[in-house]
């Protein structure tokens, strides 16, 4: 009898601890939502959060009272002028061709060994599930997963920032969005929680010759301007990739944007597919857990 109860207790304990691995991450996520909702709640608090913004822009160009899911629009959640332009461009989104091209790639690419993308990704509505932590492999972003699929089937891996990779991701994202999928990043092991913590540490660490951390601009600085551009908040930042950027006049993946951000911070960019970038993306994506998948989307 004793052995039986002992094994039940151990069984119960292991079930409990399996759910605890994302406890810290959940705390962080909720704290972030709390911070941003407070920051953008009311014009009255603006002096505390936006010390360098002019009275005119706070009165005329800001939308206040933004709630959780709205933050996935990035700076267009609060920047009225930007929002107008964004909605105009959305009348005929420039990424529609890329989604069609991605669908072509998904349905009609045949690997030399006869298999196709459908074998690696039987369900294309998976944009909200990546990055994933895979035992033995570490964090895998969608781009890394697509390249793993190519390599496992004897094909050459693709460039991770644009081109075919972005097109295929656009198809996955558009399908996920049409099916109403939410961002669903999972932390279900000690190793995954450690990877999350490393990503978080990198997000909040200063780097480059400007000594900026990601958080300087996208947590503390979100809503403030750098010259003429409003900085977007971390909350909801990864929901809308791959993104059509007017600056690129084309589509780019999360890796492409992170590389660019690195460069802007004054640091030699980390390589797409590196442990650094994957774990950073893991942390960033977790912060948007529960938000609707919004890709592909348009940004400046």
């Amino acid at each position: 009898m004793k052995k039986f109860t002992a094994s039940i207790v151990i069984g119960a304990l292991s079930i409990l601890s399996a759910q605890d691995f994302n406890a810290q991450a959940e705390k962080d996520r909720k704290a972030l939502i709390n911070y941003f909702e407070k920051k953008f709640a009311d014009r009255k608090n603006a002096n505390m959060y936006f010390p360098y913004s002019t009275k005119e822009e706070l009165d005329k160009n800001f939308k206040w009272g933004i709630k959780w899911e709205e933050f996935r629009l990035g700076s267009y959640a609060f920047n009225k002028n930007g929002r107008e332009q964004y909605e105009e461009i959305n009348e005929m989104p420039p990424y529609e061709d890329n989604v069609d091209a991605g669908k072509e790639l998904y349905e009609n690419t045949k690997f030399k060994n006869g298999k196709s993308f459908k074998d690696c990704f039987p369900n294309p509505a998976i944009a909200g599930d990546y990055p994933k932590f895979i035992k033995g492999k570490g964090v895998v972003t969608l781009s890394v997963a697509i390249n793993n699929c190519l390599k496992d089937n004897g094909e050459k891996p693709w460039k991770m920032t644009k081109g075919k990779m972005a097109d295929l991701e656009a198809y996955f994202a558009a399908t996920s969005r049409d099916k109403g999928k939410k961002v669903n990043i999972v932390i279900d092991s000690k190793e995954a929680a450690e990877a999350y913590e490393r990503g978080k540490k990198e997000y909040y660490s200063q780097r480059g010759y400007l000594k900026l951390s990601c958080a300087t601009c996208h947590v503390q600085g979100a809503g403030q301007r750098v010259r003429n551009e409003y900085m977007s908040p971390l909350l909801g930042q990864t929901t809308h990739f791959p993104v059509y950027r007017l600056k690129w006049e084309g589509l780019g993946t999360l890796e492409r944007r992170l590389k660019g951000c690195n460069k802007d911070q004054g640091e030699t960019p980390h390589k797409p597919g590196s442990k650094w970038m994957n774990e950073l993306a893991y942390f960033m994506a977790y912060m948007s857990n529960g938000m609707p998948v919004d890709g592909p989307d348009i940004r400046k």
Partner: protein
Amino acid sequence: MAKMRIKAKEKDGIVDVKAMLKHPMLSYDQAKKQGKEANFIVYIVGKVGDNVVYEVSTSQFLSKNPFLKFKFKGKKGEELELSWIDLKGETASKKVKIK
């Protein structure tokens, strides 16, 4: 995109058309800088059957992949044909059913 992407919707007797044309639209200055030949759309026309519902002369002022919006009186199920011709004389045309 092929040569153009057209959306045509009818509501209360008015058809709302949004179209994006694929064309590099290089002005003379831009072409010189890039070392290419200037080429841009010079004339766009939209027809329903024999009726001209949209007609415009264009030039260097339109930028790459121009986006057009226009409205006209029409009915669901009719067919809109949008065509353009550019400086070099190349043409393109597409027919869509009004939804």
